[in-house]
């Protein structure tokens, strides 16, 4: 089974929102009523019904305005924190690299919304479930590209074999003197961005400059979780040993009349 990567060449995004519309259409997601917030940003954020959007950032550099548009959606982590914390298996990692979500199994516990280093899964109180991008799993397993990639008119989004896309990203970054994001080899993702020259993740809104498995998730799932069983077991074993070695704490009756 081939492993895929979705490449987001941020330098090529024209902010047309074609990817947003295609995502809504393919995944049958309703439109949201939004308002004017003083920028092109619309809708304002990812939501239960909006699995991808373009983030519009106005950055001032050397007295000049730079308008950066970034396609933002699930990053499809190689070792996803959301899958690690999901109690029911509603979130799962596939061989293709996609992190998929089964709404039938989701119980709306919101552990994934807390665990995700990219703030991607979004909860709906009405549905009491979360929803997020699935990398169009039904499409990519049938020889098609994700809907957002298919709709992209500028070549900002591309989809393909993991190694080829990685090579493409590095080449493109070299050509435009940009950077590949995320660049944490310990936390690889199946969505890779190329940022334009002089643009760091910290310059952009809603972008984690140092994505990794969150420390609190590690503490919770790798330490406290096993220690729950170990702790209960150790204490029960200790009590049993105490009973066998020391024996029960018998009542010592005082002699009648003695104080």
């Amino acid at each position, binding site marked *: 089974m081939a492993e895929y990567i979705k490449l987001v060449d941020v330098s090529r995004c024209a902010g047309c929102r074609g990817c947003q519309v295609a995502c809504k259409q393919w995944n049958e997601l309703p439109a949201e009523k939004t308002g004017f917030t003083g920028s092109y940003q619309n809708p304002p954020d990812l939501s239960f019904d909006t699995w991808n959007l373009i983030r519009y950032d106005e950055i001032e550099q050397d007295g000049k305005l730079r308008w950066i548009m970034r396609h933002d959606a699930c990053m499809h982590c190689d070792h996803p924190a959301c899958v690690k914390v999901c109690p029911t298996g509603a979130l799962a990692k596939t061989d293709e690299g996609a992190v998929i979500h089964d709404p039938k199994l989701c119980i709306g516990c919101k552990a994934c919304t807390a665990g995700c280093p990219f703030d991607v899964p*979004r909860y709906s109180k009405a549905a*009491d479930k979360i929803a997020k991008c699935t990398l169009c799993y039904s499409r990519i397993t049938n020889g098609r590209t994700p809907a957002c990639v298919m709709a992209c008119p500028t070549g900002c989004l591309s989809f393909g074999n993991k190694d080829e896309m990685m090579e493409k990203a590095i080449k493109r970054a070299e050509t435009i003197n940009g950077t590949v994001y995320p660049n944490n080899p310990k936390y690889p993702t199946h969505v890779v961005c190329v940022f334009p020259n002089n643009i760091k993740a910290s310059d952009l809104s809603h972008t984690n400059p140092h994505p990794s498995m969150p420390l609190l998730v590690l503490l919770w799932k790798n330490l406290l979780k096993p220690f729950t069983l170990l702790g*209960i077991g150790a204490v029960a074993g200790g009590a049993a040993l105490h009973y066998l070695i020391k024996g029960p704490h018998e009542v010592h009756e005082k002699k009648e009349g003695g104080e």
Partner: protein
Amino acid sequence: MSHHEKDMIMVTDATERIAHWILALSCLFCVITGLGLMFHAWAIIPTVLGGYYATKWMHIFSGVIFAIATGYAYFMWAKDSMFEKDDLGWMMQAGGYLWEAKNLPPVYKYNAGQKAFFWCVIAFGALIVVSGLAMVNAQIFPPMIARWAFMLHALSGLVIAAFIVIHIYLGTIGNPGTVGAMITGYCSRAWCQTHCPRWLEEKEKK
């Protein structure tokens, strides 16, 4: 004490016993459902209870009962659980539970270990309730706050679950004659002389 033998003494009244069992059963149910939600390998727990979604809500409702019962327990038992000077001497000898203790300071109603258990349930009970509330409403907090809530919920669950095991052991087979305190409410006079001599003395003076 009509139907009780003359040397039996009421150590816990009906209100205390009912409050204790509401607290204990809601806590135990939370531990069982919590373990079922934490370990994929224990899917049998949510399966028996009607699925993960039902288990989540049962865990939350049981948590609400636990929160109310813990709050009530605080007002009921805090006064008798205040630490005093003698508790240090009791603690230093582990109450004679681990090795032979000499001249253990006489206990009033609860010994230092019981007090420690009480305050542990109050402190980690408060933490587990607050973090649980934050988890239920995780969508209104920044992910970082929600992440702390999930971690602290797991931590306080661990502490409470481990303490429960000690509590059950010491309340039953570890201390013969004790379990009646939470069933009929009565313990023997000899039991009171062993476990709460100062309280007994004061009670009998009246």
